[in-house]
């Protein structure tokens, strides 16, 4: 960061240098890091004689006086005076200024401002911290590094999407933060297709290009960016070339990945039918047999006995033995190689920077892989004294093969989770059956179809994931080109302007092939192919006027923005293959296709006005008007203002305390308006044709609403920034409240109204929260530094009111539960059916000793966490740096599918409970084989917690045994939400990193300017969790708002170990 300043300083500083004196040279280094500091002012005190240090921290100055004082100063460091008594070399060590807090941060529209002048909260993350995280995605690297920041990733892999949410979701349709790269909004759209997550735009950004990240959390901070920034902004500044400097840096990283979390499986009971728990029937020859439809794990104990798999073609007799690793063996170790090169060059007129990056990833899921290439060029040129040009172009190409399917559907992880515990992997994978020479070949049913072992999962059926791995495939290619040109004008003293044009074009081509016999719903095979083009154009201009007026300093900005986006989507599907293995459209008996185009536009004018008084009182006022294409003429223009005050108490009252270095209070209020999706204000009839060309008139299913108004986010924020004990303790506190009025969303309707949904201004949503960031430096010596940051945030989203007489709005409906927004309650209540309980809280059993699950719905949880917290530690000893990051979340609930399905299938550890008791009762003839009607059976789940119909307590000494398979099945099918919801709290060691920078003395003999080696472990340890079924930090099948709070049988999260070598010369 500090190196940026040099560019600024070089440009704005005129330094005079008198000759005919003695030369003094030296190096200026940072006390804490030992690194050299470029751009340090070196002045002979009391004169205008001065210079600055170069990029290697070196300076040389002519001193004419024999007795003088040299003053070394640099932003953010305590100035140092050295008496000159004729030395030829003076090396100086500067310490970070404990008393002055002059950090410069990038704010809206790319304007750099001193942090102390801001009336709102900004968090900064340095490029190095981002790059060192060992994750290939900038957003993922931000997780836990600032208060109030939640990074959503998928359980999929680095192939999947990620997004960032600041201070909780603001609206009932989500609200991820806007990402701005070098001043231009950077699309992070994610593309989903069924369970396939094609990633999101941010992964196109080359991590090694990132110089710094500013996080503007509140709407206040972002008022100038308009609607897109209603949920905060992440401003990413990339590296650019510097004047009069050239360098080459190279970074190579190898990452090994492995399964980070596995649900708890039982290894006691094998394949068997749920209606015949613990038993297998013998065939005619006396050998025990598993039967058709028995592919659940309700069989007897696995003791290596001979069992015939009678539903397989060859009816093999195999030892019935536990297969503890049959899931584990499905996976492999993943390997990723990433290399990047950055070359910069600059003279006093121009500079350029070229970045090249390649990443080749092989995932832990066999056959899943992705290659990524990125190339970027940034050029800056001064044309003359009043005009310069800044331009950038970036190209990214990604190709992926076999992205994992993140749903409970066939081919997903659920297929493995419900595979019988006695299932050998070679039943699923080795060469017996070769459909027309394809590489897959597992076992087959008697009729020759490949085995799919459960067709009762969800509405589709989980099956053999090896089939999807080796026979079916999906592949996609994505290209993205983006860049901008920016023309800067210096018009007059204090008056400048720029105009900028940003273009961002991306294309996704995806193809999905399903072979004949791909389960019950794709028996005849299918192929889909789609192409998705997206174009964003942003054109903007800004005038800036800057003036000093005695104690006052005024800055005014006025500008405008035109943004346009267009998506075009083209798709084709083929159904029913003629030939197996022929994956082209012509091979399909019927083909279907279509296209769609969506366009939208928004134009804006805005202005801002900042007034500083004596550099301790700062007032900011902004205003913006948007015109959007998505609302009706009467409602499509809307204005919103903001105002903020920053007051540095310590400067204002000239407080000089040895304890309190710095105190600032901030206060801000703002409004941000927002529009809605396209096609909300009008409804249309469309035409299509059936396969034989007959017309079909499609009546709209979505009821339009011409009266939609823009939604308005009103927010208030109060903040406090305190530094103590020479900056050893820093505390940043923010308290905020956001109210979204006239929240727009699609509300579902019952079809008896004639429509499925309608967009409405639904009411008011409130977010209240507290963020605390505490930085402590317990040790700060020349060689040893310990820096610790503790982040805490608490956000509560509440539904204040809903319009149109609505009491509640359903946000989504995962199985067994509904997630709703109800008036007066916290957003995200999970409601559903629950066990009936008596007044003592005991589960009530019916006459068959099964728990009663009445139809009424009650609240069983909430998807919002009570609070999240993280601790980031950096320990630096000389050139060795150790960092670790602990992240946590408490009090959020998750609707889990895995628990439902694994218990129902008898594969989970939890499903073991009660089997022995039930089997004993059954063997004693005291239980009927099938029915609910036995008074025996068993389940630990209910023992001690339930009461029988006759009023007696179900205790361990007098247990009621019920059929455990029946129990899980009935809870699943009765849609008992209580049983489907688990506590998603966790504490996790997210990141451990170790970095060694070779000492300068060592490098002196080598051609390197710097060289470092690093190691990072990500997701090494889940310290605390409540669930056995999923990784509570990464369970979502995608990052879209709709999957928030729902664990949909996603693949396990990855644990990674990265090794990095970086050098610069």
């Amino acid at each position, binding site marked *: 960061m500090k190196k940026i300043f040099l560019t600024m300083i070089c440009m704005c500083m005129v330094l005079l240098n008198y000759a005919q004196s003695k030369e003094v040279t030296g190096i200026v280094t940072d006390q804490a890091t030992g690194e050299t500091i470029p751009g340090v002012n070196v002045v002979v005190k009391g004169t205008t004689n001065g210079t600055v240090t170069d990029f290697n921290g070196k300076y040389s100055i002519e001193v004419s006086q024999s007795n003088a004082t040299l003053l070394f100063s640099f932003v953010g460091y305590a100035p140092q005076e050295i008496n000159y008594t004729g030395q030829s070399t003076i090396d100086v060590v500067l310490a970070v200024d404990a008393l002055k807090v002059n950090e410069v941060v990038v704010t809206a529209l790319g304007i750099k401002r001193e942090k102390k002048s801001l009336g709102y909260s900004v968090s900064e993350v340095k490029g190095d911290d981002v790059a060192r995280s060992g994750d290939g995605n900038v957003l993922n690297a931000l997780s836990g590094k600032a208060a109030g920041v939640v990074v959503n990733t998928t359980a999929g892999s680095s192939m999947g999407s990620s997004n960032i949410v600041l201070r909780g979701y603001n609206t009932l349709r989500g609200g991820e933060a806007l990402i701005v790269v070098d001043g231009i909004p950077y699309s992070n759209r994610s593309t989903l297709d069924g369970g396939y997550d094609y990633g999101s735009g941010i992964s196109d950004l080359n991590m090694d290009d990132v110089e710094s990240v500013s996080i503007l959390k509140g709407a206040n901070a972002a008022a100038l960016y308009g609607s897109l920034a209603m949920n905060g902004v992440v401003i990413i500044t990339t590296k650019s070339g510097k004047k009069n400097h050239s360098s080459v840096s190279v970074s190579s990283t190898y990452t090994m990945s492995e399964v980070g979390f596995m649900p708890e499986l039982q290894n006691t009971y094998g394949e068997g039918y749920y*209606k015949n728990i613990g038993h297998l029937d013998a065939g005619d020859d006396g050998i025990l047999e598993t039967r*058709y*439809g028995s592919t659940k794990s309700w069989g007897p104990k696995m003791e290596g006995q001979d069992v015939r798999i009678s539903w397989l073609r060859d009816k093999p007799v195999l030892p019935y033995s536990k297969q503890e690793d049959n899931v584990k063996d499905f996976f492999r170790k993943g390997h990723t190689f990433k290399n990047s090169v950055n070359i910069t060059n600059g003279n006093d007129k121009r500079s350029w920077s070229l970045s090249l990056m390649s990443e080749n990833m092989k995932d832990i899921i066999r056959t899943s892989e992705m290659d990524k290439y990125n190339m970027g060029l940034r050029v800056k040129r001064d044309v003359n004294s009043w*005009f310069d040009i800044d331009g950038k172009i970036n190209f990214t190409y990604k190709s992926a093969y076999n992205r994992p399917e993140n749903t409970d559907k066939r081919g997903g992880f659920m297929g493995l989770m419900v595979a019988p515990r006695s299932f050998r992997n070679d039943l699923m994978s080795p060469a017996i059956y070769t459909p027309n020479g394809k590489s897959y070949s597992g076992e087959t049913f*008697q*009729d020759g179809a490949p085995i799919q072992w459960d067709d*009762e999962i969800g*509405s589709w059926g989980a099956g053999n994931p090896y089939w999807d791995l080796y026979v079916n495939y999906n592949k996609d290619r994505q290209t993205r080109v983006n860049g901008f040109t920016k*023309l800067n*004008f210096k*018009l*007059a003293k204090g008056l400048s*302007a720029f*105009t900028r*044009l940003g273009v961002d074009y991306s294309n996704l081509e995806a193809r999905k092939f399903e072979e004949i016999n791909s389960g019950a*719903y794709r028996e005849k095979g299918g192929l889909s192919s789609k192409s998705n083009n997206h174009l964003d154009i942003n*054109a903007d*201009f800004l005038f800036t006027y800057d003036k000093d007026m005695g104690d006052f300093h005024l800055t005014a900005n006025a500008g405008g923005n*035109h943004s346009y986006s267009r998506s075009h989507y083209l798709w084709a599907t083929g*159904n*029913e293959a003629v030939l197996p293995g022929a994956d082209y459209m012509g091979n399909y008996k*019927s083909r279907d296709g279509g296209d769609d*185009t969506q*366009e939208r*536009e928004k*134009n804006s004018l805005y202005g801002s006005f900042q007034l500083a008084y004596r550099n301790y009182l700062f007032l900011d006022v902004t205003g913006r008007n948007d015109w959007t*294409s*998505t609302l009706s003429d009467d409602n499509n223009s809307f204005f919103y203002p903001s105002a903020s005050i920053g007051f540095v108490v310590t400067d204002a009252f000239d407080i000089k305390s040895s304890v309190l270095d710095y105190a600032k209070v901030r206060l801000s209020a703002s409004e941000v308006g927002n529009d809605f999706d*396209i*096609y909300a*204000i009008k409804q*249309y*009839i*469309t*035409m*299509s044709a*059936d*396969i*034989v060309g*007959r017309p079909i*008139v499609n*009546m*709209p299913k979505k009821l339009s609403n011409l009266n939609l108004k823009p939604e308005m986010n009103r927010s208030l924020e109060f903040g406090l920034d305190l530094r103590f004990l020479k900056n050893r303790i820093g505390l940043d506190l923010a308290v905020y409240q956001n109210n979204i009025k006239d929240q727009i969303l699609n509300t*579902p*309707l*019952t*079809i*008896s*109204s*004639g429509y499925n949904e*309608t967009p409405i201004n639904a009411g008011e949503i409130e977010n209240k929260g507290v963020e605390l960031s505490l930085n402590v430096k317990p040790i700060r010596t020349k060689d040893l530094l310990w820096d610790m940051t503790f982040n805490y945030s608490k956000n509560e989203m509440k539904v204040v009111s809903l319009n*149109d007489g609505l009491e509640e709005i*359903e946000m989504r409906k995962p199985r067994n539960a509904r997630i709703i927004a109800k008036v007066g309650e916290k957003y995200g209540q999970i409601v559903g059916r629950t066990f009936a309980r008596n007044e003592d809280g005991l589960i009530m059993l019916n006459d068959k000793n099964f728990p009663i699950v009445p*139809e009424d719905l009650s609240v069983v949880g909430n998807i919002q966490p009570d609070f999240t917290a993280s601790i980031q530690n950096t320990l630096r000893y000389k050139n060795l740096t150790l960092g670790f990051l602990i992240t946590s979340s408490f009090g959020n609930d998750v609707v889990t599918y895995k628990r439902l399905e694994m218990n129902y299938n008898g594969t989970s550890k939890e499903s073991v409970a009660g089997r022995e008791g039930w089997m004993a009762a059954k063997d004693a003839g005291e239980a009927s084989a*099938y*029915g*609910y*009607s036995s008074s025996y059976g068993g389940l630990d789940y209910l023992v001690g917690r339930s009461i029988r119909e006759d009023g007696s307590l179900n205790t361990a000494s007098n247990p009621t045994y019920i059929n455990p398979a029946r129990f899980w099945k009935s809870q699943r*099918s009765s*849609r008992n939400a209580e049983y489907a919801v688990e506590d998603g709290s966790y504490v996790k060691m997210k990141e451990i990193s170790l970095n060694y920078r070779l000492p300068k003395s060592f490098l002196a003999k080598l051609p390197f300017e710097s060289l470092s080696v690093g190691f990072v472990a990500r997701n090494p340890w889940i310290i605390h969790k409540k669930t056995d079924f999923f990784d509570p930090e990464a369970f979502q099948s995608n990052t879209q708002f709709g999957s928030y709070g729902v664990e949909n049988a996603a693949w396990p999260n990855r644990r990674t170990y990265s090794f990095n070598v970086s050098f610069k010369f």
Partner: protein
Amino acid sequence: MNKYIKYLAASFLIVAIGCTDKFEEYNTPINAVDDIPLELRFNTLTQNFNHAYTTAFIVAQEYSQLKCYEASTVKDYEFAGYNDGYWNRYDKLSLIFDLLERTEGEEGYMKGYQALVNINYVYTMLSITDMYGDVPYTEAGNGEEWRPAYDTQESIYTDGIRILDEACATLENVTIESLGENDRIYGGDASKWLKFANTLRLRIALRIKNVNPTLSSELAQKAFSKPLIENEDESATLPNFDIEGARSGVWNYYETAGSLLPSERVVEFMKSNNDPRLSILITKNVDDEYLGYPNGSNITRPTTEYSDFAATGYAPDMGDQILMYAEASFLKAEAYLFGIGVTANETSANEEYRAGVRANMEMLGVENADIDTFLAGSLGNLSGDQENKIKMIAEQKWLAFFHGGNEAYNEVRRLGYPVIEKRDGATHELGETNGEMPRRLKYPIQERDYNSTHYQTAVAATDNNSFLHKVWWDKN
């Protein structure tokens, strides 16, 4: 300052030219059509007489034990998603209201078109209420009321009969212009629509015979006074091709729903009666036997051990059977048997019964000689007391609905034949009805969630949304 004007002006132009006045255009999807010709709207309307060949089809055929969905939990009536099938037919109302508006106040053939719309309206609404009982009607489907109130089944029937009567009167007086290819059911033969509507009147008349005998007989009388469907050519079938290929929904359904099998009951019924339709409708299993799958059974054996649907019984272009000549004959047989709307006449009843059986067999392609043999056998003529006669009519009608949709289930409930016995818990899934055949579908979850006040009232009126609550006309 002049020197930078040209740069500045040029670059501002970039921003300025971007702004458009195309907001209206951006709000119009490229695949929206402004003026869809009326006849194309009618094309879709006639298509909307279709059956729902998805979960709804399973329900009706599973409960009436013509078919059996082996792999699914539907057999123990636990799978709530199946309750949506018929409810989703409400989505047909938006086109109906659109066309009613477009034909409103018109005279001449347009008035006749409006009658077609009204016939579809009544047909659609009754197919919904038959499944659930009281359902939204007066406030349903127009988008104005997001949470429509429920109407009683009786009032829906009463109003439907009024509308249907008016439609019939219109069609008697107005000659509508042929819709040609856009009439998917009658291919432009407009005269058949009156017969269709009139036969629908007879179906409705008999449906309510136990709950409103006066209206029933009045309606039947009207129906008998006008032409009814009198031959196979007048049967209403809909070649309802789906996107999967040039195949009808019903064909596609048999082909793709892997676990759907002929029910043990229907196989045994045909076997025991030496019915020539057996070999046409059903295949033999691996053991070369006709073996139907017992509904709701606990057994799990490979489906290859059971009979499947025989390709001879259905062709890819076989249409949905909306209202067939066979059904018209059985309706007449019942009317003659009990003297509903006509003077009771045992001979006519028997003739119509035989005509119904023959019609169904001919439609399926049974050889004439085999038909004659069958009609010469014990089931060839109505025999025994009234109860036995109606049993014979009901069972033959049930079998004739083998490829049909929900009517099989409606008539099993109304007539009580074939008798669907309570299941034996030792060998069958009992489900929440404790083994009884459900008498209705449950109101779907979407009503609970998005129309809760009215839903709660309706739930209270149906023994807590019970499967066993009988709809208004079900007095059996």
